[in-house]
């Protein structure tokens, strides 16, 4: 007698929901244990799910584009003989040993003449009587989310009431005490009315980070302090070091210098290296210096973090920068490599522009934006001389840092970057 078992999504880490990118098998395929069944993509990584045992695929329950979580049913597999589990040689086992609570059967509309959705079982799996279904409908409750406390887990009216109470008691809004904005909703616009359009799905990274950026933008009062820094001498030093660095296989850019300068600034003004506690009443002052840097990848913006920048030399930082950037572009970067930052730097200098207003990388309270350096005439007391000026845009959280402190920091950075020997002090 055949042994049809369910194959479910195993433990995939802390992700509540991941996308199915590709289903690698179809009904009738014979697979061996460990053969890949499907490919999932989380916020941070792509992974294949292997078959737990060998057998023939009976029914595939998911398709590309579905969202699954740990435990979601992937497919049913008819185990090959050798794979039969602990069933002793008694009467043929009627059901698989593991109790199967809810297998995913489709809802069953009774087939009728084409017209009119007359009898569609609204979720043939919902165990609730008509009066409870009507009650849930009145309250707008999705019965699939309610646990039943009645006989055999039937959903009773009290269960629906308890569900509603629990939902209402949940704290509203996000982290810092709710962000109910009370703004009118954004109206939906049908753009096709005005001309031709093409719909492009946002990448996963963009979708997730988009939501985070929006939240950061709205949660913290942002102020950006601009400053122009004379890096003529710094650039001369850097260019002079290129060959020597090159011999060690290192490409020395401006960013390692900025990082070291930032660390000096963080030590001088520790508030920039902190985060607001969840209750909003105290600052978590960090004694470590992990700096994140914005990296542009084909899929969007990622921010890898270099740890303990204070303990690393310029060349060491440069190497790590290159490694992490490459990993990010190849989608091989791990979640751990993007966590733990206490300050971030976002450099658009390679691309262009003068100043911009970077958005905080919460829970950090400051971020340094860097634009393209240009030769400018600077008055030195007697005359105008051409100097290489680097525009800085320092955004900070005004709940933690005020204008005076912000200006002091940019002045400090300017001082340190215009004479890099000061980093030794």
């Amino acid at each position, binding site marked *: 007698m055949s042994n049809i078992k369910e194959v479910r999504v195993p433990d995939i880490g802390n992700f509540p929901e991941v996308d199915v990118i590709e289903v690698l098998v179809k009904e009738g395929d014979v697979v061996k244990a460990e053969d890949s069944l499907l490919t999932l993509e989380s916020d941070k990584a792509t992974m294949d799910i292997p078959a737990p045992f060998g057998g023939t695929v009976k029914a595939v329950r998911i398709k590309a584009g579905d969202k699954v979580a740990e435990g979601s049913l992937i497919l049913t597999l008819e185990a090959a003989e050798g794979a039969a589990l602990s069933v002793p040689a008694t009467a043929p086992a009627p059901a698989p040993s593991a109790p199967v609570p809810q297998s995913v059967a489709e809802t069953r509309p*009774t087939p009728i003449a*084409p017209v009119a959705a*007359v009898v569609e079982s609204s979720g043939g799996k919902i165990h609730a*009587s008509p009066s409870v279904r009507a009650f849930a409908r009145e309250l707008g409750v999705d019965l699939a989310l309610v646990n039943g406390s009645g*006989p*055999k887990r039937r959903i009773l009216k009290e269960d629906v009431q308890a569900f509603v109470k629990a939902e209402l008691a949940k704290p509203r809004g996000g982290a810092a005490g709710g962000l109910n904005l009370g703004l009118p909703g954004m109206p939906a616009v049908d753009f096709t009315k005005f001309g031709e359009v093409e719909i492009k799905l946002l990448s996963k990274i963009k979708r997730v980070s988009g939501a985070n950026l929006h939240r950061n933008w709205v949660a913290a009062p942002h102020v950006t302090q601009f400053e122009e820094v004379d890096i003529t001498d710094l650039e001369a030093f850097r260019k002079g070091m290129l060959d020597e660095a090159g011999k060690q296989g290192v490409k020395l850019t401006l960013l390692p210098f900025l990082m070291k300068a930032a660390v000096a600034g963080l030590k001088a003004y520790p508030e920039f290296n902190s985060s607001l506690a969840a209750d909003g009443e105290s600052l978590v002052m960090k004694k470590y210096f992990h700096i994140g840097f914005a990296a542009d990848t084909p899929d969007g913006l990622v921010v890898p973090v270099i740890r303990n920048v204070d303990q690393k030399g310029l060349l060491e930082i440069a190497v790590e920068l290159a490694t992490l950037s490459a990993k990010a572009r190849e989608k091989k970067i791990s979640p751990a490599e993007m966590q733990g930052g206490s300050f971030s730097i976002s450099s658009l200098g390679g691309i262009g522009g003068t100043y911009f207003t970077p958005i905080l990388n919460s829970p950090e309270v400051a971020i340094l934006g860097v634009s393209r350096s240009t030769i400018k005439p600077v008055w030195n007391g007697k005359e105008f001389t051409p100097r290489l000026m680097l525009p800085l845009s320092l955004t900070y959280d005004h709940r933690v840092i005020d204008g005076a402190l912000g200006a002091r920091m940019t002045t400090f950075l300017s001082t340190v970057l215009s004479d890099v020997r000061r980093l030794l002090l």
Partner: protein
Amino acid sequence: MSKIIEVCVPDIGDFNNVPVIEVLVKPGQKIEKDDSLVTLESEKSTMEIPSSHAGTVKSVRLKAGDKVSRGSEILTLEVEEAAPAEASAPTAAPEPSATNEIRADVVVLGAGPGGYTAAFRAADLGKKVVLIERYPSLGGVCLNVGCIPSKALLHVAKVITEAEEMGAHGVKFAKPQVDIKQVLSWKESVVNRLTGGLAQLAKQRNVQVIHGRGEFIAPHHIKVETADGDVSVSFDNAIIAAGSQAVKIPSFPVDPRVMDSTGALQLSDVPKKMLIIGGGIIGLEMATVYHALGSKITVVDHGDQLIAGCDKDIVKPLHKRIEKQYEAIYLKTRVASLEARKDGILATFEGDSAAHPQKFDRVLVAVGRRPNGKLIGAGNAGIQVDEQGFIPVDKQQRTNVPHIFAIGDIVGQPMLAHKAVHEGKVAAEVIAGHKAAFDARTIPSVAYTDPEVAWMGLTETEAKAQGIDYEKASFPWAASGRALSIGADYGVTKLLLEKETRRVIGAGIVGPNAGELIAEAVLALEMGADAQDLGLTIHPHPTLSETLCFAAEMAEGTITDLYVKRK
């Protein structure tokens, strides 16, 4: 000659629920085309809506503060129709049709079980309701020429048949003397009692009933042709319950001897030989009646079983019983032609049971019913009707026009009164602002034949077609004491259970009172009861209702009234 037209809000861009700031005209006022009627204020601007026609304002539907969208009615206008060619007799210009206008919150088109239920529910919920019925009595097909009269006659048939069968058990009755006229008059009295009762209920609820044929002439107006002239009903909401009619085969001769179910129920006489075309519920119920009264019955159906839609194992006991009683049952056979002759209707057949042409005294055509969607002026209100005449609706019974609903036969299968009744309640409740929806998990079907056949939920045929895994428990009534005592040992009660949860997902019953017994299975399905629940519920003994318990016990493996070999 003048006519009344509706002037509605035109396309005003993407805005809904735009407030009316000011109404610029009043009833009786004469206006020109393009005169401003109302001022609306949307998020972007203030705008005036111009009149599409010149005429005299009859009634204004809006006031300042109302919210309107595209299509909302503004007012009705009496416009002059361009006079047809000056010729034609100058004598008495045709009277303008009576422009009595009635206002309704809800108008219900059709007073069958769906219609009157919707009307009464809406009235109970506080709405001003107008009920339009084209026939002189309320109740629709069901009360007048369907469910009720057929059950009355089937009762007569049952008594005749049972009395006859008693002869084998020691009580011999002489052949009954049937006074057709008296039977008919009793049938009428049952029908009249019910239709009269309906009229009473309508009166008690202040539902205004208008008798006449109604048709939509505009999105918010229905014109009714009454005996006293045309009446216009303007409404906020409408519920279409205009039902269905028997399918006619165009090639069949028009002859009083070729009838539909309505004609059959008139029982003008008891034909010697009767041909019933269509082996569905209606055809077989009429067969039961006429057979009991003495006709020799021949049934023809183009399918491979009687009562399509019901599992074969449930139909079989019925088939076997009537096979012995009737002249013939031809399956997979069609009537190729009917010819009206002086001494009868000659029918020729084609198909698997290719019988010789035969002459019949009467022919009943019971091959299905067609919805009346194309007969109600739906286009004038912008209501979508499909090819076959059905009106598509969503779970709240709404058509594509948001303020117009449809229920009953006219929205789809199965064409059953109890479906219409529940849909009628949903429509009325939705109009009253309740969060109602048609949420029933199954609609039971019953054939009131002898024996009765009833089923609900999933049938085995459907389960197999949809690839749904199920467990089946079929209890033979031969093991039921009660069944034996009434001579119904051929009966069957079958339960279908969901594989994993063992909940009831389908049932089929054949035997006397199957129609009553099926209700318990419907409740079991709705409540999510499983085989264990049914089996542990104490059913009284000795009854036929026990058979449901027995079937459940068979599924549980706890039955003792039968021996089922352990697998």
